[in-house]
């Protein structure tokens, strides 16, 4: 069981390397690097984090932090995740208006963004494989993916597919 200090350190790493969003990095650090949770366990907490309002990555960090080390663990995970990027952001904000339009900066940002998108996709694929969905669960997954790509608002997706997913889980494990 990780302590609050270990949670802070782990989520500091998540925050500081979390290009393109922190969820993919959170899985990498918590599952792959530290082995605190399995992919299936991480996916369950990600689902809860998505249903709660607010940033998914933060909700997920709160749930995982609280699970291992109570309220101090939750606070440690969230402050760890925000500390690095926030201080970096202050520096970036000052520089960006002056240099943001320079070609090399734009090129680097485009390169990182392409890599970050790939990382998110790889993470989703890995979670899908490891959580071993049955075919009705694959259907829910595909429906969420398709609806979101077609621009259906997230509120509707959660409202409709969330309960369907839960019903499916209920029918599979009586």
């Amino acid at each position, binding site marked *: 069981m990780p302590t609050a200090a270990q949670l802070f350190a782990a989520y500091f790493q998540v*925050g*500081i390397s979390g*290009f*393109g*969003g922190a969820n993919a990095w959170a899985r990498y650090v918590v599952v*792959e690097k530290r082995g605190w949770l399995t992919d299936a366990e991480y*996916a369950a907490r*990600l*689902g*809860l984090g*998505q*249903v*709660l*309002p*607010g*940033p*998914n*990555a933060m909700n997920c960090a*709160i*749930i995982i932090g*609280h699970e291992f080390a109570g*309220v101090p663990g939750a606070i440690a995970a969230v402050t760890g*995740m925000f500390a*690095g*990027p926030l201080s*970096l*952001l*202050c520096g970036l*904000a000052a520089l960006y208006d002056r240099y943001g339009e320079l070609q*090399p*900066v*734009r*090129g680097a*940002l*485009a390169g990182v963004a*392409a*890599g*970050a*998108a*790939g990382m*998110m*996709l*790889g993470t989703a694929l890995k979670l*899908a494989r490891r959580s071993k969905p049955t075919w009705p*669960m*694959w259907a*829910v*997954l595909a429906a*969420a*993916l398709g609806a*979101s*790509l077609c621009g259906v608002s*997230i*509120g509707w*997706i*959660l409202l409709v*597919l969330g309960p369907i*997913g*839960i019903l499916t*889980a209920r029918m599979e494990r009586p």
Partner: protein
Amino acid sequence: MKDLMALMAGLAPLSLMAVGGGSTVLADMHRLIVEQHGWMDDAAFARRYALAQAAPGPNILVVGLFGWHVAGPIGVLGATLAMCGPAFLLALGFAATRRRFEGAHWLRLIERGLVPMAIGLAAASALHLGGAAVAAWGPRPLWGAAIMAATTAVVFFTKRSPLWMLAGGAVLGVLLIG
């Protein structure tokens, strides 16, 4: 200071409306910052959003950039607190409740049932971001797509840190676009 108060008061309610992540209230942020208060124009708003996407950390940190613009360093802290505070408290309450009912049958069902939707949504945001990222490569979209595909493969097939792929993408971006 008055501006920061107005920004925080505008962001705090969005915190609890942002179901599915911070980007779902992007339109509301735009209304607050560009249309209602005129703190910056459209292009400046979009640039900051793109930067927060590319910078490390949760994407919601874009509100920190808005805060900086409105009130400097203290604005970063104030805006982040306003946007994340209410959701933080709610999630903390939920986490505590969840542990009280740990192992309960219905809770396990809910957790298992939400997994496929969560993964589907994660894949969708990857493709959304991927589309924008590839478009940013202008006349060389195949390069952007190749970097994306390579990183996907590394994450899917190996346990290697993806940081090297991101760094490689940045270098290629500087060489080919810059």
